[in-house]
Each structure stands twice: as structure tokens, then as C-alpha cells.
């Protein structure tokens, strides 16, 4: 009964109001993409969310929302069962057929382009804000982010050194490192570091010898990858990693994945954090 009345009100709202007003008043939104969920919360609209994808793990409140699965492998009926008014999705969300089914069932989808740059984050905030009818809040957040980026990037530019680093993605079955055109590579560049694996594109397995030869000054990794490798103590006895300057100088930087590589509103902090950690204790 309650559900059907809510449906009725939502339908009436959609009929009576111009579409942007309808969106602004839409109470049931699904966010697909960790960065998008973070932006929705940063705009103060977290209470409108009724669902999220598997990668939406921040803030803590998001974890309590129903999880519709990995955002590239969605299921139409699962999403519709949450009765969303509309969906804000990362551009990579899909598959396309499922998105078309959802749209055919009368649920709008706002797609947000993704790119690994500060400018792209500002653009994402603007689009999400518009979708939620929170233009003023979005403008304010954009201004704050821009200010933070300016400060952080100026600080990074002042560093004269360019530490050599690698981003270790997964240690469970051999080592896998981030190459060009990855979120990890973009973060290293923003933090004023040089990626030692810049000869290939994407995330690829690397041999123990190649890691030893690349001699990174620092190793950046996601917390779960460090856990998979058995923690920092285990790294010291790893046949390849222990040969690197990074291990000798104990410069292992492990951060939560969504914070480090999510490109959400915490991105300026993450860049600054990474830039400082890369140079911690260095001369």
C-alpha cells in the first residue's frame, strides 16, 4: 500500500512538474560508481540514494545501501526493484542492453563521463549536481575543489625531485603493476612522481626481475593488495621487492583503494597525501 502510494505521488510529480523540477524533487536515486556516490554525499544528497554499486564503499553510510553488483555487469530487474526515480551512472556502467531495458521501463539514466584529471572531477560534480537539482551546492563544491587543487598542485610543482615509484595492484598471484593510461599512473603524475613502468598500457603482470631492475624508490599500493601480500613485514622477505630501494628505505605507501584511485571529491587530499608520502624522509 505504502509503495503504491509513493509510486502514485512520484508519477503525479513527473506529470505535473517540468522535468528538471521533477529531478530536483526525485527522492529515489541510484548511484553507480564509487566516485559518483561520493559526490552525491558531498552534495548533501546522500539521503536520496536507494541503491549503489559494489565500488561505492565511501562514506560509511553508503555501505548500508542495497548493492546492485558491479557497475559494468548490472541487472535490469534488480535495479528496477529498488524503484528508482532516476540513476546517475559512470560512463563505463553497463552492459548497454541492460541500460536500455532500464530506460525502456521509464527510469532515466544520467551518464557521467570519466577521465583522470582534476578538470574531469569538476565536470563530474557539475553534472551530478545538475541531475540532483543542486546547482548551487555543486558550484560551491566545485569552487572548493578548484581551490584545493590549485594549492596542492602548486605545492607539488615546488618539489624539485621526481621520485621513481611503482603502483602494485595485486600481489596474490605474482606481481601486477600499473602502466600508462591508468588511474594509478595519473595519480603518480599528479603527485610529481615518475612511474617506473611507463612502457606499457594498463595493468599487467611484471616479472620479479623487472621489478628489481626498475628499482622504484617507493611502492604505492591499495590496502587490500598489501593484505594479500601478507602485510609490510612479509614484503621485507619478498624475493623481488626486498631488492628495491623502496623496501630498503621502508617507503611502502598503502591507502584505501577508493580514496587513492577513485577520483572522487577526496582526490585533492589523496594527491597531496601521496606527494608527501613519496618524499617522506627524503633529503
Amino acid at each position: 500500500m505504502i509503495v503504491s502510494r509513493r509510486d502514485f505521488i512520484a508519477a503525479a510529480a513527473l506529470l505535473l512538474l517540468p522535468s528538471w523540477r521533477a529531478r530536483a524533487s526525485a527522492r529515489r536515486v541510484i548511484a553507480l560508481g564509487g566516485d559518483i556516490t561520493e559526490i552525491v554525499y558531498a552534495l548533501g544528497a546522500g539521503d536520496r540514494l536507494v541503491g549503489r554499486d559494489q565500488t561505492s564503499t565511501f562514506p560509511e553510510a553508503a555501505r548500508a545501501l542495497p548493492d546492485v553488483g558491479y557497475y559494468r555487469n548490472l541487472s535490469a530487474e534488480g535495479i528496477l526493484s529498488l524503484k528508482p526515480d532516476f540513476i546517475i551512472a559512470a560512463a563505463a556502467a553497463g552492459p548497454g542492453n541492460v541500460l536500455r531495458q532500464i530506460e525502456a521501463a521509464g527510469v532515466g539514466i544520467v551518464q557521467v563521463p570519466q577521465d583522470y584529471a582534476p578538470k574531469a572531477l569538476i565536470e563530474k560534480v557539475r553534472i551530478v549536481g545538475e541531475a540532483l537539482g543542486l546547482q548551487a551546492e555543486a558550484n560551491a563544491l566545485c569552487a572548493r575543489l578548484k581551490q584545493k587543487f590549485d594549492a596542492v598542485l602548486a605545492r607539488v610543482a615546488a618539489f624539485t625531485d621526481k621520485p621513481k615509484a611503482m603502483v602494485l595492484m595485486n600481489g596474490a598471484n605474482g606481481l601486477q603493476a600499473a602502466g600508462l593510461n591508468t588511474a594509478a599512473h595519473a595519480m603518480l603524475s599528479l603527485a610529481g612522481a615518475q612511474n617506473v613502468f611507463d612502457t606499457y598500457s594498463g595493468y599487467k603482470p611484471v616479472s620479479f626481475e623487472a621489478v628489481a631492475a626498475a628499482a622504484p624508490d617507493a611502492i604505492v599500493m591499495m590496502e587490500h593488495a598489501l593484505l594479500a601480500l601478507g602485510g609490510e613485514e612479509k614484503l621485507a622477505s619478498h624475493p623481488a621487492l626486498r631488492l628495491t630501494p623502496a623496501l630498503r628505505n621502508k617507503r611502502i605507501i598503502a591507502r584505501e583503494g577508493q580514496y587513492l584511485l577513485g577520483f572522487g571529491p577526496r582526490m585533492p587530499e589523496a594527491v597531496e597525501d601521496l606527494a608527501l608520502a613519496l618524499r617522506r624522509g627524503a633529503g
Partner: protein
Amino acid sequence: MMAERVIPHERAGFADLACRLRGARRTLLASLTICLGLMSILALTIGPVSIPFERVLAAVIGWNKADQTEIIVLSIRLPRVVLALAAGAVLGLCGAALQGLFRNPLADPGLIGVATGGAFMVALSIVVMSAVAPSLLAELGPYALPVFASLGSFAAIAAVYALGRRNGALSSADMLLAGIAINAMAASGIGYLTFLSTDEQLRTLTFWMLGSLSQSAWEQILPAAALATACSLALMFNAHALNACLLGEREARYLGVDVDRLKQRIIILSGLGVGAAVAVTGVIGFIGLVAPHIVRLMAGADHRIVLPGSALVGALILLIADSIARIAVPPAELPIGILTSAIGAPFFLWLLKTRRSAIQ
């Protein structure tokens, strides 16, 4: 005198036995069909969105995609049910036909490279074509993967066929071995493409390799389901010839079966049928292997029952697996590849244990 009395009696006994067997088989096929019908109705009724049965019925009868519930029933659930039935049936049936043809209980579309060939072409289109010929991919749109998968399956079958020729005749053993080699080559090709792929491509690839019916859209599944069903029907007509092959190839020839033509027919029909199914569902293993065995354990090796029975059992397994995939972890969904084995394997083992001991 004695003999004259005994023989009619024995004959009557055999006729009676044959009659009872035929009756039992008819009962099996009938009950499988009823199960499949009930399961289809159940699959249309259950899902993450709760829709009362009478509304489901009204939607199907009215065929009117007016409100959201009707769209969910007609555009999301029904295509999945149709696809599960068509793909499950063709996988089970091809497994039965290939096992019969190769006289090998392990033969199935997955083993001789048909499914892997399709998967290889899909990997190729995801990883290489998107860089080399993006305009072609854009033009094919949602048809791109199905088209490439069918091409791959058919190429694998054609290669098996060409490599299996010995002195002008087709050798079952050579075809089987060639199929295994092609399977391995396609698998290593997929492995290499996985290495080349970007993170995004890799994820698309992985999900496709696990199989899923969630992408079913009418415009894609109708051609695929029609082709799979046509191949299934055509395969059904080979029961007598496959029965003769059970005795051995030479014996089948003596019985008047054109064994080479039979091989040709079954190979081509399996390639087309599995290619069509794999093209829209991704790789779904195990059904082709296990469905025929389940039927054989229940009703014996006569292909007149193994062929239709495998189609029904295959469809039933896939339909049950897909229904569980949809409702197990709402609002998310489980990959179906996990479930076909999780459901089929324990049932198969149970049947194997109980039936084997019953026969002894």
C-alpha cells in the same frame, strides 16, 4: 511342441517389456515437459520486483508494454526465459549428439572447441577490433559480439571437420583430438588477449566468459533462439542413425547409415546451434556434458529418448540456474556459469550413485 509353446510366450514377454519401456520413456519425456512448463511460469513470476501472478498472466496475454510491471515481464523476464529454453536445449542436444557421434562420454561442445572458438572471437573483437576497426564495431552495435561469436564457433567446427579427414573419410578419433587441440589453441589465444587487454576490456571479457542471460534483448535473442531451435529440431532427426553408431561405425554402415553424411550434419548443426547460443549467453559450460548423461541414467542409451530428453533437461537446468541467478542476491545477480555446475553436478552425482547401485 515345447519350443512352439515357449517362443510365442517369450515373444509376448519381449513385446510387453518393449511396450512398458516405451510407456516409461513417454512418461519421462512428458513429465520433463510438464516440469519445464511449470518452471517457465515460475521463472516469469519470481524476480527481485514482486509482481503478483495474475498481473504476470495479464501482461503475457495482453502483450501490452504500457506500465513498468508489464515491461519487466515482457521485456526483461520473458526474453530470459525464451533464451534459457533455447540455449539450454541446444547445448544439451548438441552434447548428446556429439557424445553419440564420437562414442565418447566426455565429448561436449566445450571440449571440441566450439564454445571456446566463439569466446576467442569475442575476446578478439573486444580487445583488438576496438582499436583497429572501431567503425566496424560501432556499425554492428549490439550485434557485434553475437556475430563474432558465431563466426568463431563455426570456424572452430570447420577446422575440426577439415582436420578430421583421413583418406577422404571422417575419423571420429581424429576429429575429437583436433577439437581438443583447437580448444587449447583458442584458450591460449584468449589468454594472450587477456594479457593485452586494458582493465576495462578485461572486466568485460571476464563477465562474458562466465556467461549470463541478463543481456537478453528481444532483437538479439530472437534470431539466436530461432537458429538454435532450428538446429535442435534438425538434430532430433538423427536418433536412428546415432543408435546404429552405438554399435560401431562399420556396423552402422552395414545397417545402411551414411556415416560420413551423419558426421557432417551433426558437426555443422552443432557449430551453428552452439555458436548462436554462445553468442548471446557467453560461455555456459557443463550443460552439454551432463544433460545427456542424466537422461541416459534415467532412461537408457536409446537416442530416440536421449536426444529429446537432453534438450528438455538442458533447458530445465539453464532455466533453474538463471532463476536462481536472478533472485539469489537481489538487487545484484550471480554469474550463471557458477550455478549451472552447482545445480547440475550434485544431481548428476546423486543419480550416478543411486542408479549405478540399482543396476547392480
